[in-house]
C-alpha cells in the first residue's frame, strides 16, 4: 500500500497554485495520472522520487516511511526504491547503452540481468551504441530498462510513450504490461493518451490545479461505465445550399439534408445511432 499526503506550492506559467494530494494506491497496481499540463502530475512523480521536497507531507510505501515532514524524515532519492523514466529519456550521452545500464547497477556486477533486460525489450544488438544514434522508441526502451536495473518497488513514468509513433507505442505498451507482471512493480504513469490509459492502468487519478479531482478505474473517471447507443458530434455550418447543409466536423465536411432555418457559422450537434455506424480496421 502506498499512502500519499502532500502539500506543495507550485509556481507555474499560469500563476501560483498549491499542490494538495491525499490518496492511497494499491501495491503492484498500475496507476495513470491524467490532467492538463501544469496540473502538477510531473511534480507529484518527482516528489515521490525524492527529487522535489514538498512543504508538508507524508509518503509511506509498503510500510516504509519515505517522507514525513513532521518527523523530519526525508529519504534521499538514492535510497528510495524507485525507477524513473523521464520524458526526455535522460540517457547519459557519454555512455553506450550497455554503460548506461551498468552505471545503474548497484555494486555487484550482475551483467546477466543487464542482458536479460536488453533481450526483454529486443535491444541486445544495440548494447554498444551511443544513445544519440538511437531512435526515440529505442531510447525509450533503454530508459525503461535502465530504470529497472536496481529492481525498484515502484516505477515512475513521465509521459513515456508520448514521443512515439503508434506502432512503437503499441509495442512498448506490451513491454510495459509484461514488465509490470513479471517484476511485480507498482507503476505510476503520467499520460494524456486515453486508449493507453484504458489499456494499461487499473487506476486513474485525474488531476487539475494540483488536486485530485477524480479517482477510480478508467471507466469510472472518464464516464465509460455505461456504453451509449448514439453519438453526438460538434460541428459548424459552412454553407446552406438547396441540396443540403454543409457542416464542418473534425476537418471534414458532411452534407446533411436537413430542413430548418440555418445560418452560416451556426454551431450545431449531429446525432447518429450506433446501429448505423460501421467499423473499419486501419492498415
Amino acid at each position, binding site marked *: 500500500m502506498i499512502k500519499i499526503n502532500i502539500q506543495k506550492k507550485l509556481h507555474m506559467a499560469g500563476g501560483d497554485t498549491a499542490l494538495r494530494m491525499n490518496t492511497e494506491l494499491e501495491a503492484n497496481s498500475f496507476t495513470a495520472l491524467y490532467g492538463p499540463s501544469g496540473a502538477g502530475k510531473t511534480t507529484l512523480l*518527482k516528489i515521490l*522520487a*525524492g*527529487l522535489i521536497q514538498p512543504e508538508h507531507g507524508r509518503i509511506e510505501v509498503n510500510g516504509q516511511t519515505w517522507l514525513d515532514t513532521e518527523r523530519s524524515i526525508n529519504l*534521499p*532519492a*538514492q*535510497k*528510495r526504491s*524507485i*525507477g*524513473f523514466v*523521464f*520524458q*526526455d529519456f*535522460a*540517457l*547519459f*550521452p*557519454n555512455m*553506450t547503452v550497455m554503460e548506461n545500464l551498468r*552505471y*545503474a547497477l*548497484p555494486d555487484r556486477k550482475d551483467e546477466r540481468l543487464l542482458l536479460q533486460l536488453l533481450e526483454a525489450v529486443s535491444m541486445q544488438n544495440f548494447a*554498444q*551504441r*551511443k544513445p*544519440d*544514434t538511437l531512435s526515440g522508441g529505442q531510447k525509450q526502451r533503454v530508459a525503461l530498462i*535502465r*530504470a529497472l*536495473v*536496481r529492481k525498484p518497488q515502484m516505477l515512475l513514468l513521465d509521459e513515456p510513450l508520448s514521443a512515439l509513433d503508434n506502432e512503437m507505442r503499441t509495442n512498448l505498451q506490451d513491454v510495459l504490461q509484461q514488465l509490470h507482471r513479471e517484476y511485480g512493480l507498482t507503476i505510476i504513469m503520467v499520460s494524456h493518451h486515453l486508449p493507453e490509459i484504458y489499456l494499461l492502468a487499473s487506476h486513474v487519478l485525474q488531476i487539475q490545479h494540483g488536486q485530485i479531482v477524480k479517482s477510480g478505474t478508467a471507466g469510472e473517471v472518464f464516464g465509460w461505465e455505461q456504453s451509449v447507443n448514439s453519438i453526438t458530434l460538434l460541428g459548424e455550418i459552412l454553407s446552406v445550399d438547396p441540396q443540403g447543409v454543409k457542416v464542418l466536423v473534425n476537418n471534414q465536411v458532411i452534407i446533411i439534408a436537413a430542413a430548418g432555418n440555418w445560418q452560416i457559422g451556426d454551431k450545431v450537434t449531429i446525432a447518429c445511432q450506433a446501429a448505423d455506424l460501421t467499423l473499419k480496421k486501419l492498415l
Partner: protein
Amino acid sequence: MDYQPLLLTFKLALVTTMCLLAVGIPLAAWLAKSKSRFKPVAEAVISLPIVLPPSVIGFYLLLAFSPNYHFGQLLESVFDIRLVFSFPGLVLSSMLYSLPFMVQPVQAGLQSLPASLQEASQTLGKSSAQTFFRVLLPNIKPALLTGIVLTFAHTIGEFGLVLMIGGNIPGVTKVASIAIYEQVESLNFAEAHVYAAVLLAISFIILLTVYTVNKRLVKSRWVS
C-alpha cells in the same frame, strides 16, 4: 639566444591552468546550481579581470602581497612566503587574472545540461560526487577543453600583471612577453622577433587545436 623566458612562460601557463582546474571547476559547479543571492556578486567579482586593465589588478595585488602591508606581512611571518617578485606570486595572480576564462565556459556547459541527467543519476542511486564526475563533467568536454585552452592561452598573453607583480627577474619572473618588451627597449629587434614569433605561432596552434578538437568532440556524440 635565451630560451628561459619561453620555458618560464609555458611553465607558468601550465601550472596556472592545472591550479585553476582544481579551483575553477568546483566554483563553476557551485555557480551553475546556486540560487544564493550572493551569486551575482560572485559572478561579477570573477568576471572583473575581463574588463579591468591588468595594471589595476596588478597594483592591488602588489599592495596585498607586499611585506609592507598586513596580508603580505602575515604571509611572511606565519608561512614564510613572499609572493611579490616570486614564481608562486605569479601563479596566484595569473589564477585570479584567468579565473573567468576557466569558470565561465565550465559554468555555461554545466547549465546547458538538462536537469534530468542529474536527476536520473540520483534516482539510479548515485551520489552527487559520482554524478558530477561520471555524468556531468564527461558531458561538457567541449566546455572543459575551452576553459583549459583559454586559460593557458590567456596566461601566455599576460604582460601588465606580470610586470607589476613579478618584475623582470631572469629565470624567476621574466616571461616571454616581458623579454620581448625588454629587447625592444634595447633596440634588439632580432631577439624580440624570435620570442614574438614563437608566441604567435604557439597561440595560433593552440586555438586551432581547440576549434578542431571541439568540432570532433561534438561530432563524436553522434557516432558510436
